[in-house]
């Protein structure tokens, strides 16, 4: 294991990000981590000589650029960038306003793009690095009541897929991590925005949200094991582009992808009728 790899982790004051940072520090890695609130981050992580807490507004390209420069100034380089910050947003498309939708994309998508845009010049120069985008199983298969969240996470899946090929020539790896349900604070009010203007007509959404709320605390995924898997991933010579985490993610993704391929066959003749 190369203990000198420097990690940059966004959204690290709770959940998977926090668990990952603790594991990394315990294993002796230098870690820069971001949060909207640096004090909350320091309180959650504690003081370590190898730890650089950063207060960052991920939606602001300049704030991100500054955080990355500060990290390079302190540790000399960034080897692994983990785009972990994100939050769930629930409601029908009709119930969520344009502003609520855009705010969720600010963190879930544009923040990720800002980090990639600003970290790549350093990684390209050093001809190495690993960008890890934490998406979700919702970025591969959508659930009732989470259309906007699915949109944001599918977007992350798509940009990761393209990016992985684009930066290969520089020796940079890119991985999409799609976790299933992990026992973090994700399903609590802290990490979740649910529409505050529900429309009574949408009964399927209310039922779906109630089901999710009842799952909280009983998720099968162990965040400690997820953190270990992520560290293992980075130490592999040929890491995957798509990495699911959790047996639920595994079975849901497979059944979705197989279902899609079967469904395409049903419309094959119409699909193939459109060439000159």
């Amino acid at each position, binding site marked *: 294991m190369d203990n000198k790899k420097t990690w940059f982790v966004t959204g690290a004051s709770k959940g998977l990000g926090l668990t990952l940072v603790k594991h990394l520090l315990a294993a002796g890695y230098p870690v820069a981590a971001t949060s909207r609130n640096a004090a909350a981050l320091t309180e959650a992580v504690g003081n370590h000589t190898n730890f650089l807490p950063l207060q960052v507004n991920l939606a602001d*390209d300049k704030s991100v650029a500054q955080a990355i420069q500060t990290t390079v100034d302190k540790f000399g380089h960034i080897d692994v960038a983990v785009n972990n910050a994100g939050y769930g947003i629930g409601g*029908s*498309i*009709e119930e969520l306003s*344009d502003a609520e*939708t855009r705010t969720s*994309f600010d963190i879930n*998508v*544009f923040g990720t*793009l800002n980090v*990639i*845009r600003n970290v790549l*010049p350093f990684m390209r120069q050093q001809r190495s690095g690993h960008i890890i985008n934490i998406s979700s199983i*919702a*970025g591969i298969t*959508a659930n*009732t009541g989470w*259309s*906007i969240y699915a*949109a*944001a996470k*599918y*977007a992350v899946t*798509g*940009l990761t897929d*393209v990016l*992985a090929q*684009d930066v*290969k*020539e520089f020796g940079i790896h890119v991985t999409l991590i799609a*976790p299933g349900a992990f026992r973090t604070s994700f399903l609590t009010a802290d990490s979740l925005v649910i529409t505050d203007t529900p429309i009574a*007509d949408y009964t*399927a959404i209310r039922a779906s949200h109630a089901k999710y709320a009842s799952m909280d605390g009983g998720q*099968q*995924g*162990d965040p400690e094991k*997820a953190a270990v*898997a992520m560290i293992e991933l980075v130490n592999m010579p040929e890491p*995957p582009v798509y*990495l*699911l985490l*959790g*047996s639920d993610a*595994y079975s849901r*993704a*497979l059944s979705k*992808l197989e279902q*899609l*391929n079967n*469904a*395409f066959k*049903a*419309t094959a003749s*119409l*699909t*193939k*009728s*459109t*060439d*000159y």
Partner: protein
Amino acid sequence: MNKVWFVTGASKGFGRILVSQLLAQGYKVAATSRDAASLAEFSGNDFLPLTVSLTDENSVKSAIEKTISTFGKIDIVVNNAGYGQVGALEEVSDKDARENYNVNVFGLLNVIRQVMPHLREQRSGHIINIASVGGMLGGFPGWAIYCSTKFAVVGLTEGLREEIKEFGVKATVVLPGYFRTSFLGADLSVTESKYQSVKDSIQWHADLDGKQPGDPEKGVAAIIEMTKSEHPPLNFLIGKDAYELVPEKLTSIIDEIEEWKELTVNTVF
């Protein structure tokens, strides 16, 4: 035919051909463009041209209200407006990335948000979102932003289909392969790149322009045909290239998932 269609981005490409075929077949059509003057080739009582800024929700709202006051209802909504953005991710500015999202994602959401109250009330309707094969496969060097907008459309349509099922309203996302429209020409936003793979991709696509295998007249005919189905598909590929590329990509993802299964499933308590 008494079905009423609402089509965005109707001044060129798929949108323009769709309006033309629909009017020829006797449908009623409301069509949007940034400037309704660009829709001057169409006329008649069955046609309603609308100047709309899709990123302005109020503008979308009044367009939908005008359609309903003119034709009495909306049956089929086609979110067609959109454009391509190519350039290495680090070279495309935050501003340019957001602009691509404004049209391809947030404008489309404005239409859905504003039309849904009407479709819910009438307990029928069909929302058709035009994405791209780039909404399911990322094998296009330099198209990260564009593909991410189209992946977003694929994801939100899948969610939408479930959330509106109880009202008898349907949703379909169309994933065209390469069609001979102005998509790769004047409509494409290009960010000059220093990446060799991206430069090659930009050149490859410039060379393809005008030689795309897909006939947009037939692509549009297939979309109209699809809407006549009692059970329209959630994901509708159009083009032989789409039919080859997408399943091939999904199969390669399945293979990768299987290869890494152990690491995946060992993360549970």
